[in-house]
């Protein structure tokens, strides 16, 4: 199953992943090969089989809406790449 160069670029765009031209070449070839191998699952008739997303008998877990202390601002900003006062600095969002 051959993946086109355009598909590689489209998927990289969906994942917001910057790729070099070399990486695109390699991924085009590798993804085609890997997805081809994965197609063995086509041999199994699953028309009557429900999907499994996870395996434990746990549904959405609810908790009381209690006010609890959050992490201190200083702690949260400790790993911020760029800060300004108590804010995280980011590149322009609107052009």
């Amino acid at each position: 199953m051959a993946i086109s160069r355009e598909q590689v670029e489209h998927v990289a765009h969906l994942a917001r992943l910057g790729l070099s031209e070399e990486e695109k070449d390699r991924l085009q070839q590798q993804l085609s090969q890997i997805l081809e191998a994965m197609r063995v699952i086509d041999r199994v008739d699953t028309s009557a089989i429900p999907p499994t997303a996870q395996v434990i008998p746990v549904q959405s877990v609810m908790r009381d809406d209690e006010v609890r202390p959050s992490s201190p601002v200083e702690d949260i900003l400790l790993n911020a790449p760029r800060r300004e006062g108590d804010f995280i600095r980011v590149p322009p969002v609107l052009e």
Partner: protein
Amino acid sequence: MDLTDLSVLEALDVMRGGECSSEELTGAYLERIERMDRGLLQAFVTVTPELALQQARAADARRRAGDEAPLLGVPMALKDLVLTRGVRTTCSSRILEQFTPIEDATITEKLYAAGAVLVGKTNMDEFAMGSSTENSGFFPTRNPWGDLTRVPGGSSGGSAAAVAARLATFAIGSDTGGSIRQPAALCGVVGLKPTYGRVSRYGLIAFASSLDQLGPLTIDVADCALVTRVISGHDPLDSTSLAAPVPDYQAQLGADLRGLRIGVPKEYFVAGMETGVEQAVRASLDVFRDLGAELGEVSLPHTDYGLSAYYIIAPAECGANLARYDGVKYGYSAEDAESMWDGYYKTRGRGFGPEVKRRIMLGTYALSSGYYDAFYLKAQKIRTLIKQDFDAAFERFDALVAPVSPTVAFKLGEKIGDPLAMYLSDVCTIPINLAGLPGLSLPCGLSDGLPVGLQVIGKPLDEVTVLRVAYAYEQVSGWRKLRPELPA
């Protein structure tokens, strides 16, 4: 007495008897790490000597005050995807190279409360994606077995190598498709992936959330039972953690397997399996018969499709989990971003390594419009069939035994250029994650001087039987004292 050759239980005995302190024991490990790690085994990303000695002295004080915490003063290593407050946690990724957590994972808290001492954070495949630890964004780890030219397995390769080379008494790893069991097998140690939900994952850096689970790597089964008890249990901060009570696993270990029904899944002896691996695993079957177990062959007919289903489901989940690395709140951030969008592309393009990019691309493709039904939904249906295979097998059997990996430790560089060949390393471990079952690897022999692992698989939440089967085998097999020969 060689302090670093002690198991967890032996080390506890020695410290309780006053023969050595945790400070001395920890010092012995730190000295061994200093001598054998950097430039040689490279099992650690970060070594924490000051914290370790401080924790060791605190443990000694606790013992003097009468504290009997279950791991009091025992030196441990944590895979570098378990959050440790104030200690850099990198996931062996450039994107988290400078990341210092502001809180501990639940498993870290539990281990600290039990008195364990952190000697360092272990190397891994970046974001736990890989089977050789060669995908680390920093450096490869070497398997202590053989001539130091082989991989330790992965992704918990640093943890497995550290335990095998006695750089820590025990270690913690994570297992999404075999990442505890396969490196345990390749390094000749014991590794348990508990039931999905048995151990809290709060503070585990996520890879594939429906599959990830934390577990111990130890030198023997009794240590594994002890550490598993400490780390298991419900956590209000992890809604997927199970409320089931945690048994005293150690108390239920015994020499006898009379009446226990053990199934041998025939599909796990896959094409391409090394003869030496198959021979060692088959030889273990006689041992189980001698121990009184009833053995029978069983078929898990959808095994062949597990690998494909996994390499669709896990990348799909990783694509979602890794969307958080945006260069805004923490982690590497491109300095030359011209806009928000440009920043995302540059940060992620430079911060992630080749395998992580490959998985994000695979997963995003499988979830994208037009391919969702053919790949992702189909894989989830295969997952149902794999689960049903196990359900049927466990109606007839109490536990299953199988190989862990089709090969012994392979050479560094041998498979790194061929993703599909690397993925095949996990063909015997992946179905257990898809079904959420407990699976344990323990040594069952040597092939060409390299360790072979035996896998014991149990019903959900039946770690008791898994550990019993492994323990009984270990007592009579003679492989418990397996140690690599390392340069002095």
